[in-house]
């Protein structure tokens, strides 16, 4: 593979979808299985053009179910792999996203969110899949989901998603949205040597000493690549350290707890937020994705009116910054939570605030962004 072509070092003017594709390439992605869907199609289009340049494989699968499966298969074949989709396709991917968590397969899924439910608003924005990202596949698991708010972050956070997927051996979600995906801004792509990449955590043990799902302190098993003589068995059934199906409550507890704990115990290390003026604020806006940029305007409008308002942007939506919200809840009068849905992350904020501060949702059904004034009104309401 040619690293020269994989990283398009320089300053570009590109949209979020294209930047996410370039982020994947810069992270070393060599396999993309996807299915066209607005507003994520440009990710696939870019990959179909670019992957052959780096001797990678682009394949347009027959549907999103197949796309998700194909990237899991490619991961075990040794590739860093990725897919992208939007609402309906995200729903179709859910079962096999779960297979990814269960089999601890590193890969990246970019969801360029549009308005739903169902076919909804193919060309217009929504932030309605945030809870689906957390709970959409059946069973218990923890997720890592990043929410870029600019094309630059689509690039940066897709790389970060690949790194986290390798670090914790699991699919990682990039939950962007239609506005960010289709927005064009400057994207600075650094030289390859300045891009930090987490390599796949391959075992150094010989086959005879390798136990596929045995883990140490960090609860993340070492991986292998198919075809190297390890002869592993990977299954979506509840399995023991050998990878063999064991259908009983004891193994279930052991496995599922580990899958959950490997994220929960590292949550503080994984999660990323950006805060603006939260110290001494009376109201804190909690937001993510495109809404954080609209909220920033509301914040400025409020500050002009001499309101003490801060802003917390969730760069990782999952894990959720529980401890920080609890801490802020003791200091502020309330939280204002604008989202392009009728209430999702607000429940997390409310749960962590636990009655110590008021939590006010600024709902928006989707199709466009909030009027900044709506957020301003909510700030004033909390302060009144």
């Amino acid at each position, binding site marked *: 593979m040619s690293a020269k072509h994989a990283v398009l070092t320089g*300053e570009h*003017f590109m949209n979020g979808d294209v930047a996410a594709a370039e982020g994947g390439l810069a992270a070393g992605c060599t396999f993309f299985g996807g299915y066209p869907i607005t507003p994520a199609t440009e990710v696939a289009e870019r990959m179909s053009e670019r992957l052959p340049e780096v001797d990678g494989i682009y394949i347009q699968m027959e549907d999103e179910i197949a796309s998700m499966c194909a990237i899991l298969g490619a991961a075990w074949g040794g590739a860093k792999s990725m897919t992208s989709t939007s609402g309906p396709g995200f729903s179709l991917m859910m079962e096999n996203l779960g297979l990814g968590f269960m089999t601890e397969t590193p890969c990246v899924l970019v969801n360029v969110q549009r308005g739903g439910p169902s076919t909804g608003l193919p060309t217009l924005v929504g932030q309605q899949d945030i809870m689906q990202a957390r709970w959409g596949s059946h069973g218990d698991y923890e997720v890592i989901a990043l929410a870029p708010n600019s094309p630059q972050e689509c690039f940066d956070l897709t790389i970060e998603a690949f790194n986290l997927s390798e670090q914790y051996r699991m699919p990682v979600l990039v939950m962007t949205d239609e*506005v960010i995906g289709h927005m*064009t*801004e400057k994207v600075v792509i650094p030289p390859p040597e300045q891009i930090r990449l987490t390599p796949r955590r391959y075992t150094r043990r010989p086959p005879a000493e390798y136990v596929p799902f045995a883990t140490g302190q960090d609860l993340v098993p070492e991986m292998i690549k198919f075809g190297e003589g390890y002869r592993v068995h990977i299954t979506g059934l509840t399995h023991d350290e050998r990878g063999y199906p064991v259908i009983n409550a004891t193994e279930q507890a052991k496995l599922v707890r580990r899958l959950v704990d490997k994220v929960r115990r590292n949550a503080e290390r994984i999660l990323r937020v950006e805060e603006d003026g939260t110290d001494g604020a009376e109201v804190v806006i909690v937001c993510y994705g495109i809404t954080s*940029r609209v909220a920033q305007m509301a914040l400025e409008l409020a500050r002009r009116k001499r309101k003490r308002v801060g802003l917390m942007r969730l760069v990782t939506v999952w894990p959720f910054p529980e401890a920080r919200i609890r801490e802020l809840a003791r200091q502020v009068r309330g939280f204002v939570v604008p989202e392009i849905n009728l209430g999702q992350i607000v429940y997390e904020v409310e749960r962590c605030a636990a009655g110590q501060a008021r939590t006010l949702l600024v709902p928006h059904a989707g199709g466009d962004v909030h009027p900044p004034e709506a957020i301003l009104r909510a700030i004033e309401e909390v302060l009144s």
Partner: protein
Amino acid sequence: MRKEIRITGFGGQGIVLAGYILGKAASVYDQKSATLVQSYGPEARGSACAAQVVIATDKIHYPYVRHQEILAAMSQEGYDSHSGKLEPGGTLLYDRDLVEIIERPPSAALLAGVPATRTAEKLGRRMAANIVMLGFLVGCTRIVKKDAMREAVRTSVPPGTEEFNLTALERGFTYAREAMREHKQTQAKESG
């Protein structure tokens, strides 16, 4: 500094490309920030089409045009639906071949037309009307440096059409010089 620009027309005129080139010139070649959002969906393929470009000296948060200071209209429909929203003291530019102005919008401090489509046709490619308009827009407003525009055009048009498009851009600059001279004379007359 934050400038909000809307370019309107119909699908196939290269409206989004015009917004792209303008944003690229500002952000990649002129040390500014720029954000382009485009109308997306069926309207980008045949009927009304618009590109919103915000150019600023610092970080751009809110990406949409709220105070439309510059409108470049390349279709009657685009003019009709957006000219009324021009900020007082704003700049209204239009393609003289495609837009008929019945009444000067009161908020327009500068109202200027350019024969963008005819110029492009004379140059041999009607497709370059957007580039003529861009030259005109930048020439009249100076929101980005001309050299930045030249660089953005050169790196954004299909390979092999660079020279042609740069010529179209220069024609736009020339028309802008004439328009601004005229505008200043009118202003002088009015104040005198």
